[in-house]
């Protein structure tokens, strides 16, 4: 590894103002939003074009310099942390919405555009891009594609993998290629694009993408319901789906979440005997809403729901949603000196009652507080583990709890990561999941990594270890 020659060559292909080498600024790339160990990169490069990305990666491949692509750096698993003197490729300067094409129903966008910025632009055209991770304010198109992001609307619209038509990808050898198609149907050989989506920057650097877009819902009605038993709330989700409803969102908040929010937002109150709350959004034509609501209220009552409220008024909808929106800030402010690790598991919706109970048992076993909310329409739970970063025993419990939650999800037929990814924190759990599903897949994954990236220069050590 001849870093001096690499540095000189990089400055030949990108201008000096796009290369960062001062220590303080490099340190700003040493972390993400997870508890993973930090590491300072040797250099940060801020390319503006696919060509610049390609030239830099060619050099990295030639000089065997590890490269970590990143943008919003909001990851929750250590994926963009530059271990072993890696160079960070910061894609935030590639931030243009290139084309909104309503006739062909796509948006062509560079990867440094944040999801909320993208949706603000699309809303002007009456459309939206459905995947909506909670971090959409800060999360970018590139990070979302690389991490297979989902969000609240996942139950109805799936995750980013369902919304990408094609993408320009720079391979770890530096060759730019266009994967996928611009058309909805696409059978051009093996589906390499699907391999790259969710590969966390280990198989290629996405520089721009053609994303599917969808018309904004004609009308939305929001319902709020409480349950005296978390298991009833979880059961209600299965009943809603079994009756043929596909709500836009079904958000679950446990009692711990409601307590935290009420301690932070004075206007928020909840019935003292309730153990869980669901927020449900139904979308569709305005004339069908009354029928939908009547039917939904019946289902919820049948499942043990009470104090059911519904509204189509925007301010009222915001008021109901406040409980969910304020949940994360409430945790950060109420548990001072502590940190919050948002876990991310999925189970089949029919197994939610067992999962919710299991989370309670794991919390008691380790004596750490876990506050759970989740996008339960698709069985995705976010148990938020509260730990003390300055107490080694608390940190070690955090990792034990995280591991047990993952193992529980596997046992219930679910998965260890729904929408956050594997990064460095969940590599062991990934192996555990593959042991159940067929460990031969780990061999395939390693082989795929070697075929894409023979010199192991692109985000090495993330998702899987190849040695």
């Amino acid at each position, binding site marked *: 590894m001849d870093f001096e020659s690499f540095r000189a060559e990089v400055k030949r292909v990108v201008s000096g103002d796009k290369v*960062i080498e*001062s*220590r*303080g*600024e490099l*340190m*700003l*790339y040493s*972390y*993400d*939003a997870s508890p993973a160990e930090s590491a300072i990169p040797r250099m940060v490069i*801020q390319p503006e074009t696919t060509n610049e990305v390609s030239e830099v990666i060619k050099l990295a491949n030639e000089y065997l310099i590890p490269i970590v692509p990143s943008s*919003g*750096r*909001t990851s929750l698993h250590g994926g963009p942390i530059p271990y072993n003197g890696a160079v960070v490729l*910061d894609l*935030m*300067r590639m*931030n243009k919405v290139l084309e909104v094409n309503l006739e062909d129903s796509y948006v062509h966008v560079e990867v440094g555009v*944040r999801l*909320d*910025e993208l949706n603000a632009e699309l809303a002007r055209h009456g459309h939206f891009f459905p995947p909506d991770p909670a*971090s959409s*304010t*800060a999360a970018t198109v590139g990070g979302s594609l690389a991490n297979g992001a989902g969000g609240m609307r996942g139950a109805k619209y799936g995750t980013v993998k369902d919304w990408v038509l094609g993408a320009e990808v720079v391979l770890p050898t530096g060759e730019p290629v266009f994967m996928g198609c611009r058309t909805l149907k696409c059978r051009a050989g093996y589906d390499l694009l699907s391999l790259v989506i969710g590969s966390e920057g280990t198989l290629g650097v996405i520089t721009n993408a053609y994303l599917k877009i969808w018309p904004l819902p004609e009308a939305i009605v929001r319902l709020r319901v409480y349950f005296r038993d978390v298991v009833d709330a979880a059961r209600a989700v299965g009943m809603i789906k079994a009756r043929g409803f596909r709500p836009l969102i079904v958000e679950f908040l446990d009692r711990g979440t409601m307590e935290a929010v009420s301690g932070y937002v004075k206007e928020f109150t909840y019935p003292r005997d309730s153990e869980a709350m669901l927020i449900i959004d139904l979308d569709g034509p305005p004339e069908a809403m009354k029928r939908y609501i009547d039917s939904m209220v019946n289902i919820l009552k049948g499942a043990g729901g009470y104090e059911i409220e519904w509204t189509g008024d925007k301010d009222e909808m915001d008021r109901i949603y406040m409980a969910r929106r304020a949940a*994360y*800030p409430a945790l*950060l*402010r109420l548990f*001072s000196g502590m*940190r*919050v690790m948002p876990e991310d598991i999925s189970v089949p919706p029919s197994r939610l009652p067992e999962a919710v109970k299991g989370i309670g048992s794991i919390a008691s076993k380790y004596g750490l507080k876990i506050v759970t909310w989740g996008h339960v329409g698709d069985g995705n739970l976010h148990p938020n583990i509260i730990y003390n970063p300055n107490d080694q025993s608390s940190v070690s419990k955090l990792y034990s709890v995280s591991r047990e939650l993952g193992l529980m999800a596997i046992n219930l037929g679910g998965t260890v990561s729904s929408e956050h990814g594997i990064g460095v924190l969940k590599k062991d759990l990934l192996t555990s999941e593959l042991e159940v599903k067929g460990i031969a897949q780990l061999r395939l994954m390693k082989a795929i990594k070697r075929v894409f990236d023979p010199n192991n220069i692109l985000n090495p050590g993330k998702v899987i270890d190849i040695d």
Partner: protein
Amino acid sequence: MINDQVKLLVEKYSLTRCARCNFCESVCPTYAATRRRIHGPRGRIWLIIYLSQGIDVNSDEYDGLLSCLNCRACNQVCPAGIEIAEAIHDAKALLVRNALK
């Protein structure tokens, strides 16, 4: 000596509460203009923390702190409720006072 003063500032605003979610950067006008993280709230907060730990900050990074417009957009979106703009303002005052000595 400036490190000690910066340490007090880090404590006063409990800057280490930063959960590094980066919501603040998305509303910051100076970050939007330069796309350099030293010109964004999350970057500035962590530069202040690094200063308090005795890590040297170079002139570009000082500029990053000084370029804050004090518009306070970051304060509005911070889930941890950190008074980011005020902390940066105090840090700027410390740096300038120190430079004038």
